[in-house]
């Protein structure tokens, strides 16, 4: 992939108080790429997503989205902290699916999806509803469109949350452990939607997950995080079958042993298109 990266981290420093989460962090994602971020909790992978979604600021370094500064602006030739207006503009390029879904409980499923397109993108109501219905069909939630989040299972809520993020037509969609709060039997339906998304859309996906089967099927690249660094990156096949780092091997073993529902990865036919 020799195109320009759609998102780029350069020497990023992120601290929570004295706790350094990312240090001199470099990372690139290319348009249409599906990247899975793996690693122990506290290793910084979720922080990477939250910085891209502008939910966490950075202390040093720069982040670009489509070659444009995310957390900074150029003013009179100087680089200054981004204004709210700039952040709002940049935010529209990115969508996020949260571990705990975070649907708006006071709104119907349909309105959860149409709210932002109508009020942020200023899409006419009728058009927004039509698009929301298409998205609901894609995630298999058409029958529940007038229900409220509290009436849905976790898996159903997460599928609505995916539709809600897609309704904003983001260039990059971020998934922060989308299945880890779900009952085991709900995980499959959400992963199926995400697989469909990976096939059908020319969409850049960044997924924090420990679902190795999913990573195997979908990821162009798996990045293994430890202590705020990417210690190893490669195709799922490289990472899962011939990891170079001992730390990677340890982590994968612990994931496989913990979750019997995860099917151990097997070498699959080349999926390159």
């Amino acid at each position, binding site marked *: 992939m020799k195109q320009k990266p759609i998102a780029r981290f350069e020497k990023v420093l992120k601290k929570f108080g004295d706790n350094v989460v990312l240090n001199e962090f470099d990372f690139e994602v290319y348009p249409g790429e599906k990247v899975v971020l793996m690693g122990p909790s506290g290793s910084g992978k979720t922080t990477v997503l939250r910085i891209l979604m502008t*939910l966490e600021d950075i202390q040093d370094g720069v982040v670009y989205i489509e070659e444009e500064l995310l957390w900074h602006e150029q003013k009179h030739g100087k680089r200054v902290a981004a204004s709210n207006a700039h952040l*709002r503009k940049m935010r529209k390029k990115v*969508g*996020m699916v*949260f571990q705990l879904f*975070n649907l708006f409980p*006071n709104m119907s499923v349909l309105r959860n999806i149409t709210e*932002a397109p109508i009020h942020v993108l200023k899409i006419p109501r009728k058009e927004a509803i039509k698009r929301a219905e298409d998205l609901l069909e894609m995630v298999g939630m058409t029958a529940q469109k007038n229900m*409220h*989040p509290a009436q849905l299972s976790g898996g159903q809520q997460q599928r609505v949350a995916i539709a809600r993020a897609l309704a904003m037509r983001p260039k990059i969609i971020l998934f922060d452990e989308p299945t880890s709060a779900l009952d085991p039997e709900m995980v499959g339906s959400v992963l199926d939607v995400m697989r469909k998304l990976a096939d059908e859309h020319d969409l850049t996906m960044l997924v924090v997950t420990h679902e190795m089967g999913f990573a195997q099927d979908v990821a162009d690249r798996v990045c293994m995080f430890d202590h705020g660094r990417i210690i190893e990156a490669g195709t799922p096949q490289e990472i899962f079958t011939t990891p170079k780092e001992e730390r990677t091997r340890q982590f994968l073993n612990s994931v496989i042993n913990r979750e019997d529902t995860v099917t151990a990865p097997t070498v699959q036919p080349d999926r390159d298109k």
Partner: protein
Amino acid sequence: MLFNIPWNLSSNWTFAWSILPILLIGLEVTIKATIFGFLLALILGLPLALLRAVPFRIISWPTAVLIEFIRDTPLLVQVYFVYYVLPDYGLIFSAFLTGTIALGIQYSAYTAEVYRAGLEAIPQGQWEAAKALSLQTRRIYRDIVIPQAIPRIVPAMGNYLISIIKDTPILSAVTVLEVLNVAKIIGDRTFRYLIPLSMVGGLFLILTVISSVLVRYIERRLPKEGIPLK
């Protein structure tokens, strides 16, 4: 005789019957003081809660102190203050207005805490999801935060409504002819306290029961877990 209405002392029953219209005039004042005081508390409480939540200490801290001060001083002191001290500074209010302002101020400190708790109960994830959708702050409050906060706020506000009803007799200290003051005057003039005071107790009971039924009715019509009732 009070308010040009005479009483009939020939028997307990005729006495009670004859002073009822007099007490009802006082009750009307009580109800008005309650409504205005409560509305004032609801209105004043919101800016207090918002100022308190401002991330700048120079604003939030004095607000917190003010709220604490109002809450921790007796209502009667505040009533006297508005009635006897403010006129020295050119602020002269009628006795009725004095009472309702004091009630409103006292209870705004309580409603501010209710608003604050209601807003803080909105999970962080709701804010993050709204931000991730690029919704503007005004829109987040209007469509997400306030609709979710209201069902949490209403029950507590209902309790304060009933509490205000029961605090209105304090206004008699600054000559307001609310229902207790009226009953006391009747007692002073007839030397019969039992009947008017018992009737006042009964009237307050009726008032608070009606209010709590009303509050519960509103509560039941609020959405549960975000699901609106048909």
